[in-house]
């Protein structure tokens, strides 16, 4: 079982992350201050660390720096309420592997944790992804459902690929904007919605079981059963 270290002083957020991670099948340890967190990080072994920046006793960046000084290479996601470009850059430069600003959706945190795990464990990705009767070939960039080929524009394919990679997990509009279009903000018009509905027309139209589901308030999920 993958082990996660959470260093976060806000009890509500810690509880929220802990529960979500346990449901997602992770084992999670929690420290409420910087010193206790550093202690756990150095003396135990974890697959991913989720570290808040503003912590009592020792702040998050200091924890990461001390870990790196001791050659501890645990991948770290920084949680922070600061979202300026400078803060992000600093967080990553000083040893963080990813940076997530509060407030965040749990699905996004989970997706980032999974991405870090994939990267850290050098998982060789297959060139083909499939969910139910839908499969895509990442090299040929083609999609096939029930044996019939689906014509997709490049961006539509990228969107589908992203949904497939996170199959079963909710992805928010923000995540889609960021990962598929490389835009780190939300336009006011329903850009993602429009794109999803086009994709839906191509993927789900004419099939009994829809694959793309909207989760109100959270985003979208691609899965092979009723959500």
């Amino acid at each position: 079982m993958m082990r996660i270290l959470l260093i976060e002083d806000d009890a509500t957020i810690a509880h929220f992350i802990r529960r979500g991670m346990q449901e997602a099948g992770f084992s999670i340890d929690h420290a409420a201050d910087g010193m206790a967190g550093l202690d756990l990080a150095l003396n135990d072994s974890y697959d991913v660390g989720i570290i808040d920046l503003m912590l009592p006793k020792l702040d998050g960046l200091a924890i990461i720096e001390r870990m790196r000084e001791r050659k501890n290479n645990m991948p770290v996601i920084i949680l922070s309420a600061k979202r300026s470009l400078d803060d992000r850059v600093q967080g990553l430069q000083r040893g963080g592997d990813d940076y997530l600003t509060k407030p965040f959706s749990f699905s996004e945190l989970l997706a980032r944790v999974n991405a870090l795990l994939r990267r850290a464990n050098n998982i060789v990705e297959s060139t083909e992804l499939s969910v139910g009767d839908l499969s895509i070939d990442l090299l040929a960039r083609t999609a096939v459902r029930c044996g019939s080929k689906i014509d997709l524009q490049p961006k539509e394919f990228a969107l589908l690929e992203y949904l497939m990679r996170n199959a079963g997990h909710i992805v928010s509009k923000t995540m889609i904007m960021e990962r598929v279009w490389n835009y780190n903000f939300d336009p006011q018009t329903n850009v993602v919605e429009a794109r999803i509905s086009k994709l839906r027309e191509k993927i789900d139209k004419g099939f009994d079981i829809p694959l793309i589901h909207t989760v109100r308030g959270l985003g979208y999920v691609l899965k092979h059963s009723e959500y």
Partner: protein
Amino acid sequence: MTLASRLTLWYTSAFVIFLLAAFVVFYLAMVSILDERMDEDLEEDIEEFAELFEDKGLAGVKSEIAREVMAGDEANIFLVLLNNEGKAFYASDLSHWRNLKVDDRAVRRAATKNRIVLRTVEVGGQEYATRIVYGRIGPQVILQIGESVEESEEMLEVLFAVFAVVFLLAIPISSFIGWVMARKAVRGIEEVSETAAHIHGGHLDQRVTVRPQGAEIQKLADTFNAMLDRIRDLITEMREMTDNIAHDMRSPLARIRAISEVAVSSATTTEAHKQAASTTIEECDRLLQMINATLDVAEAEAGTAAADLQTVDISELARDACELFEPVADEKQIDLSCELDNGCSMRGNVQSLQRMLANLLDNALKYTPPNGKVGINLGCADASIKVVVTDTGIGIPQPDQARIFERFFRCDQSRSETGCGMGLSFSQAVARAHGGEISVASEAGNGATFTITFPGSRIFPSPVRD
């Protein structure tokens, strides 16, 4: 120590030093002139007596000596006739010169070399020094003339006394003048600082008024006033902004509160709870977006750090933006046309520029009704980059056009439309941070055209080390 007293001190010191130097020079010049004149007189006397001796002989000389030293003058001057050995054989009244000695060497030199010899000696009983001259006026006749320097000394003493008085008067007078001048000079500064102190107490409408007393002070006051104007504008703007933020935040907060209250008190099914939670998340995201947008504008206004600048292919960014918004346009049945020159690039921050373009298209699509037209045109023909975004939407009424770039400004003051008016202020901040400018042309009900121009110097940047 205040500036005024320091200036006064400097002024007084400079004045006093100058005065002192002038006196010293004057005094020394005076001394040398008086000495010279005395010596000349003595030498002339010797010459006159020599001529007299030639004309009228010793008797003439003797009677002349008697006449020369009139009564009352004997304390000041004396004349003695000596032979070549220095023996006196005739003299004027020497009652004041009892301790007079004859300088044998001087006599010898006068006798043998026929020279005029001058000496200054102290004679016992005489208050002042005595200047003595020895000169040969005839065979075996040496004339010794002595004159007290009392007269010149007294003159110098008077001079000294006059100076001392002038000096003593000069210190207070120059201090006073210096003080008045210094006060006059710093008056303006004091007025500025008094106003500043006053403003510190919250009177932002006060301005410094200075009487005309020099360009420097006027400039200080003007700069200060300009700064005050800016501060007042900023504070007004901030106040408005805070009001707007508070207003815009209150609505989602009110909704969140209402939904949660319903969920707590009357929702019974899981479905109803889920519904409430979903709406809450949506409202939270709206709040978050608003806060982020505000911060982003502030960040963009602060400008981009040089380190974050890179060469950006803005044509590609515009193409991406077109591609991004195409489905939205399709959905609203708006004709989106993109006419983009290829390969226009500039120095800039990718994310800000990307977002600026997206904001403009986003806005255009939002305010254009179905079956309308939105276009983006990008050109870099004449050494500058020009982005034009047009729409056939509701347009912007003339009086609002100047204000649409303000933060939180929304044309319909009812604030019913969701999304806050940050897009345009952000775009403006980005354009300006990149040295460009944004402008709008519009007629109410007749669409709007936004034009952004980036100056040419940004297009072909010098290569940078990355």
